[in-house]
């Protein structure tokens, strides 16, 4: 058990080290200008940083000439944290922006949280003004923002986080919440914010695997899901969990800099949980349904996550429960196998690169006839047939501990009637009886495509205008598995569980893979080397050793050191005397605030 005070001293030491590194950067933004005010006190640098940030065109801001969430939040966090020290010119710019600008909410949950947090803090600070930027008195925005933030916290506490477990966007939930914890004058809101921060850090800890975030993610960047260190959340993973030497290249991202100077520190038990797992453990989570707004005659179901955290690897997947045949959230990652290793060398994942334009118009405004170009012009990689991320309505997964079946039944007319499987280059793959077997040192893995496949190379780079010289985005093997019924069976086991890799190969190839009824009857089964039988009926039941998996019984949180039932607003993390209890004080009969953000 770690003492909270000692833990906070460790966090502070890491924060100071990180802040020193940030302060040395030449180019600062409103996110990172905290470091100037904390270290060098160069007023002009702060003014320049604020001016540059407010004028910057960034995603989420909408069209040019409007301020969006990525302008609003860092500006207000800077203003609130350094109200007394901020150069007057910088303070005036921010005040003018909030009182006279043209601001927009964006359309994702993190956008709205940043927007409403920044606006709430501004409305509190300039409450005496006759008019806010939106033509209403500041109190109108204060009330609107408070309702939405509290409503979203309640949804998270009852049915799970919507934009769940995203290495790219979790930081954009954490930072506004930390900003509210630090600066709001609303005591009830602050108390609820502290509770939901515990949930958000617990989410980080439960699937934290040696610097990586294992398993399914509502969103995992674009072309980043073969990386082991993904997204700006790395900064908070290091700040709160430590456990490894500081590396500015890995551990610093601008979006998290305000957290370094915050008083908020999570419960110490969560840091211990992130690194210490005495035995392999199963983490279950329920997350909110995807918000599919059209091309469907019913709503999406809850997301049920399963992540097996073993000593040397983590296998995580989710039941996404998408409605119909059009919805496929564009940056959702439904499963992966994660272990400790270099970028591109420690992930296995596969997907169906669903290309229908309706996957855009299922959650965005453009008509389907326009959606492909409207979205794809700005993000051309979303339409690549080699895509390795993004959901498909034609995917189903069943998982049991370190083994899983990932299966697809893709309609004949689909534009990409195949699946893409990513395998690392550095593994010495062995092919035997259809199984691809890898010795990862501490553990062994076997992958069996469910249909014919062809072995290809994949290399994608940011700098691809003329020629790809470095696969900094994706670099590995791409196995194209033929449709219409592609998929894989996968099993990973600790090296300590079998005598040798050779023995693993023998046992894995000898254990059953039931493909006879897959193509014709949509039934597939896998026997693990321990003898467990996993069965999937594609649009029916999933079984382990003959017993139906009851996904409806999934808790909000379920793990050896996490428990929480749906709709109660109560959770417990830790064990023994090392516990943190959270109670949101929720009335389960009260209707939930309707969800209005995409994803």
């Amino acid at each position, binding site marked *: 058990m770690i003492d909270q005070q000692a833990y906070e001293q460790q966090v502070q030491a890491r924060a100071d080290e990180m802040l020193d590194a940030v302060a040395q950067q030449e180019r600062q933004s409103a996110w990172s200008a905290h470091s100037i005010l904390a270290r060098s006190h160069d007023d002009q640098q702060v003014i320049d940083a604020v001016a540059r940030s407010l004028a910057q065109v960034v995603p989420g801001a909408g069209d040019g000439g409007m301020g969006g969430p990525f302008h609003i939040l860092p500006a207000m966090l800077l203003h609130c944290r350094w109200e007394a020290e901020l150069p007057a010119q910088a303070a005036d710019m921010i005040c003018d922006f909030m009182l006279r600008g043209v601001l927009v909410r964006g359309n994702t949950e993190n956008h709205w949280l940043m927007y409403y947090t920044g606006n709430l803090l501004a409305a509190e600070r300039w409450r005496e003004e006759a008019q806010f930027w939106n033509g209403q008195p500041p109190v109108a925005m204060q009330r609107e923002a408070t*309702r939405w933030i509290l409503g979203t916290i309640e949804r998270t506490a009852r049915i799970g986080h919507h934009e769940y477990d995203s290495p790219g966007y979790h930081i954009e939930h954490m930072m506004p919440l930390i900003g509210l914890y630090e600066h709001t004058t609303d005591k009830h809101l602050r108390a609820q914010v502290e509770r939901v921060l515990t949930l958000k850090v617990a989410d980080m800890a439960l699937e934290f695997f040696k610097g990586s975030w294992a398993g399914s993610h509502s969103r995992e960047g674009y072309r980043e899901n073969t990386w082991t260190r993904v997204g700006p959340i790395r900064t908070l993973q290091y700040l709160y969990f430590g456990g490894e030497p500081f590396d500015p290249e890995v551990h610093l991202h601008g979006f998290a800099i305000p957290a370094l100077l915050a008083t908020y520190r999570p419960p110490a038990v969560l840091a211990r949980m992130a690194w210490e797992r005495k035995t392999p453990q199963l983490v279950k989570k329920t997350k909110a349904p995807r918000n599919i*707004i*059209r091309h469907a005659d019913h709503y999406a179901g809850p997301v049920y996550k399963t992540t097996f955290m073993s000593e040397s690897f983590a296998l995580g997947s989710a039941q996404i429960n998408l409605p119909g045949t059009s919805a496929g959230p564009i940056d959702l990652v439904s499963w992966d196998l994660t272990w400790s290793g270099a970028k591109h060398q420690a992930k296995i994942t596969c997907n169906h690169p669903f290309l229908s334009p309706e996957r855009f118009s299922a959650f965005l*405004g453009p008509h389907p006839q326009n959606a492909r170009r409207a979205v794809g012009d700005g993000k051309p990689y979303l339409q690549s047939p080699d895509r390795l991320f993004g959901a498909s309505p034609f995917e189903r997964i069943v998982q049991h501990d370190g083994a899983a079946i990932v299966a697809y039944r893709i309609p004949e007319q689909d534009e990409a009637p195949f699946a893409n499987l990513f395998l690392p280059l550095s593994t010495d793959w062995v092919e035997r009886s259809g199984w691809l077997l890898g010795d990862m040192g501490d553990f062994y893995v076997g992958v069996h495509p469910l249909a014919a496949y062809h072995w290809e190379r994949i290399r994608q780079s940011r700098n691809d205008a003329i020629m790809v010289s470095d696969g900094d985005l994706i670099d590995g093997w791409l196995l194209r598995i033929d449709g219409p019924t592609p998929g894989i069976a996968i099993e990973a086991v600790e090296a300590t569980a079998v005598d040798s890799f050779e023995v693993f190969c023998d046992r894995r190839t000898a254990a059953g893979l039931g493909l006879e009824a897959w193509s014709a009857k949509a039934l597939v089964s896998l026997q693990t080397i321990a003898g467990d039988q996993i069965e999937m009926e594609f649009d029916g039941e999933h079984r382990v050793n003959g017993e139906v998996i009851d996904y409806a019984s999934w808790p909000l949180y379920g793990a050896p050191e996490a428990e929480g039932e749906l709709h109660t607003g109560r959770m417990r993390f830790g064990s023994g005397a090392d516990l943190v209890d959270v109670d949101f004080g929720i009335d389960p009969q009260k209707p939930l605030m309707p969800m209005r953000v995409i994803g």
Partner: protein
Amino acid sequence: MAVGEVSEQDWIVGSTGVWAGDPQGEWRSHGPYPFAVEGIQRAESSLLVGTGHGLWEAPLDPVGRWTQLHDEALTEVLDVARDAEGAPVAAGSYGVSVSTTDEFGLRRWRSLTEDLSPDQRYTNVIRLAGPDLWLAATEAGVLISTNSGLHWESTELSGSPVRSLEKLDDQWWAGTDDRGLWCSHDGHAWKQVDCPAAAVFSVALSGNNLLVGGYDGVHWRNAQGVWKQSGPRALIRCLVMAGKIWVAGADPGGLWVSGDEGASWHRQGPFQRVTVICPPGGAA
């Protein structure tokens, strides 16, 4: 009247922001609000503007600040109307929404179609035909309400997304995404109209001339009932006929104007996309 103020003689266009002017002349931006405009309701003293960023009231003076009318429950607004009392009714991705005011006089919105299926809820167009009769063009077809939106039922036009809905010369016209053009006298019973466009995004009628905006440009049915294709082969979101002047909004493609009943068309103004066209004096 302030400089640049919107007058009754102005045409109004919804694009990236609101613009006022003349189809064959100059256009002026109506304030520094580059929202993606989807619906405009014109009134004597102001404009109601439905956008991808909510619902706004814009004063006629372009220097005036727009006032936010939406709250956290009203987001993307695809169309806007006014009820018998003049209160705004918004249609959008989360249904048909109306507002009440709280103790501070601030609008609180609720969707009247929240509990319907996603496709039934997603409303492209809302039309208020009388004090009680409301029609909604949804992704599941045309829905009808005879009690001001409190209860809704399906009509005979079901199973296809409906992207345009107009009452023209005492008849309802509906453009579907995949089954062409339909018409109805009462909003309940619908019959398919012979039309060369499978996807219909806009409809206009003038005398015996019927114009339909499709994915592949404007289709014109003349007095003899003969269809002709006219103008740029673009997705035509909106159409207005004012005498010999025909105006079409393409998305993408901008504003196209014909002064000779469709014989030739000219792209006008700075627009890349046009979603709404309001002729002088009237409503959208």
